[in-house]
């Protein structure tokens, strides 16, 4: 069916066809069959924000940071999470009986993986539980956050311990990216947080992808994202009664420079706040890209004056503030229970930006299908292999054309 669509568009494309088609259905065709360029610019799926004014919320909209809510979300703090982004889940339900059924299915999957010997510690027996996580549904558009626990005995232990903790959530999702026609079939969770071993995490992700026909991949944070987070959260003091953690920037030194791998630049929270307040009006909720750039460049300039080392020629690999610690490869550690929603809201926004980007290419998806691989479809965009869309999601995209 998809090959037919490809032929349809490619054979019928000419100026006449283009003029006949309504404007919203016209495809700006880019042919990959030109001359091989002598140089390439490496493009990423990250929206470039240079030169454009971007407003980012510094405070949560709903302002319901009550102490009871912070108590509910305390389990998110002081734990190292791996962050993933997801495509919409097909036929997912948060009804209690469905959650119970998912738990049974995942338990049997864990047991099967254990018998195959996938776990380093032998005899990891696990019972999976799915339940609704309270405190993360802020708006009507947000889906019910789901917590997944796998409990079991490790090795020769006799006591049950939690082997895996995961949370599916979307916090303060602005607008609904799913059109009403397909909303009944799909549930969109932008963010998955997982704390477990690599093997167990793989089992969970594989099960979710197979069972709900979705695509899950790590949510990586390029340096520009981390610069935003530093600018947003270094000004937020977690608890004024306690001494705040210093702001930490970890730069990765390029591999051509042998001998040094990384440079860690740690700044006292109060001094960092002083610089930030000189740049940003504290009364304003929003701040701009210019403010973020000025903030980072002034810190790097101070470093240069001390050591004559150009930090702007290196890439940020990890950043830490009083609120959280974030690594480029999708590592997250939250320190403040009161700001869990704020941080998850930002992660939701980043994940949804990725989703919007890929959805924005929907008009070229049909003539970029390069092959199928089991239940997935490989898509070529701008000479680069992008997301492999599950079949069900591709059906959803095609329905919109």
């Amino acid at each position, binding site marked *: 069916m998809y090959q037919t669509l490809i032929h349809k568009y490619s054979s019928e494309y000419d100026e006449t066809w283009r003029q006949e088609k309504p404007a919203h259905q016209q495809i700006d065709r880019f042919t990959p069959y030109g001359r091989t360029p002598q140089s390439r610019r490496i493009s990423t799926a990250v929206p470039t924000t240079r030169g454009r004014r971007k407003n980012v919320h510094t405070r949560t909209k709903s302002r319901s940071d009550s102490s009871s809510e912070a108590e509910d979300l305390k389990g998110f703090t002081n734990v190292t999470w791996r962050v993933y982004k997801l495509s919409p889940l097909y036929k997912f339900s948060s009804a209690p009986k469905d959650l119970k059924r998912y738990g049974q299915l995942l338990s049997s999957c864990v047991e099967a993986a254990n018998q195959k010997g996938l776990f380093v510690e032998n005899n990891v027996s696990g019972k999976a539980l799915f339940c609704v996580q309270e405190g993360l549904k802020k708006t009507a558009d947000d889906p019910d956050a789901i917590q997944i626990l796998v409990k079991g005995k490790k090795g020769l232990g006799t006591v049950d311990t939690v082997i895996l903790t995961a949370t599916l959530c979307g916090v303060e999702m602005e607008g609904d990216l799913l059109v009403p026609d397909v909303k009944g079939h799909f549930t969109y969770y932008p963010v998955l947080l997982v704390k477990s071993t690599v093997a167990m995490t793989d089992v969970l992700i594989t099960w979710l992808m197979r069972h709900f026909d979705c695509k899950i991949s790590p949510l990586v944070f390029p340096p520009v994202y981390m610069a935003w987070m530093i600018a947003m959260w270094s000004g937020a003091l977690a608890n004024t009664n306690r001494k705040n953690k210093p702001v930490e920037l970890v730069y990765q030194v390029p591999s051509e420079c042998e001998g040094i791998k990384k*440079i860690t630049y740690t700044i006292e929270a109060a001094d960092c706040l002083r610089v930030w307040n000189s740049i940003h009006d504290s009364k304003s909720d929003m701040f701009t890209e210019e403010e973020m750039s000025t903030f980072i460049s002034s810190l790097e300039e101070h470093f240069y004056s001390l050591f004559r080392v150009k930090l702007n020629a290196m890439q940020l690999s990890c950043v830490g503030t009083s609120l959280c610690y974030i690594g480029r490869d999708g590592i997250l550690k939250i320190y403040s229970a009161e700001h869990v929603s704020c941080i998850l809201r930002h992660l939701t926004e980043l994940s949804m930006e990725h989703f919007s980007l890929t959805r924005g290419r929907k008009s070229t998806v049909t003539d970029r299908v390069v092959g199928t691989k089991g239940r997935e479809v490989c898509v070529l965009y701008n000479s680069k292999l992008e997301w492999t869309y599950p079949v069900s999601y591709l059906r959803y995209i095609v329905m919109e054309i």
Partner: protein
Amino acid sequence: MGFIADVLKSCFSRLKVADLEQLIRQWGYLNNDELSQLDFSKSKLCVFRDVLSFCEDKKRHKEALRKVNDLDLMCTVKNSTKKKWTMYKLQDKKSGSKENWYSDPEKFKRKLQQQVDLYFDSAASVSVTLQDGALWCRLYLPSGNHFMTANAVYLIHYPNSHCFAISAFKVSVQNFLFQCLSNLFGYHTLTSMNLSGLQYKSLFQLAFNKLGETSFGKLSDVQSLPFISRRKRKAEEIEREPNLRSEDVAMKRHRSLSLEAAFGEYQQPVLESLRFKVEAKFMGKKNIENFQDNGEPFRCCVKFEGPSVLDGVRNLASCGLANEPLPKHLLRVNSLGTNNFVLKSKEKS
């Protein structure tokens, strides 16, 4: 025998399979018959069980315990980079004390054992060996009946030098431990040099550059000390490849000459980290219009980390990631003999 088994297990877990046979033979506790019965092609666990059974068969508990302690020390000598070493210098010689410089490991061990018996439990044990001109010591200061690796303290000392390297130790034993060493060396004060790392030879080289002398004389008279590295650094690619052409030869040559003047032509001592604690005026306000300068310093901490940070600092300049001239606090690490610095703005008088 449970204690001996724990010590042996700790040794075997640290050793590589390739080094196991050589070290067991070098150990000298097992006779030729027993050595011939060991099958080193099997797993470490099998060899461990065989060695343990030989130790138990000997039925001389004290000697077996002493010998496994020696093996533990040999393992540490073999894998010295697995421990983090901290340098201390000896100051304020005690009046009336003779120069307690021992190069004989047995004498050193007897003296150290006497001091340890004064301050610690009689179960505390001492092992000493001589390796590459340095005295290596292992002190086991027990707390409880079971063996714990945290109770073992290792020490390296070059005879006739005013410094030593020590591995991590519990804070609870610091006072008594330092009292032992103070009596042993005949000095009142043991001061931390704020110098630590994994490569003990580089640490001694840096400490020596700072202290500058031994009982034999000044630094310039003792260039042939075993820990002084005299290897020239690897040539840059542009120097190695005659077919490579650079577009800005003059600039690169100028940079290369200035770096050679600053760092020398030899390899730098190996340091894994360089830490700076800075309290200076904020210097990044070029693009900030209304900076709230209340006169307070801008406090930050900078850490350079890598396999060889001093070489890395040099390479930062040669790669163009740093501009010359580099500041003095980066250039003078070699002579200052520390890898933890505090930088403060000069106060206006």
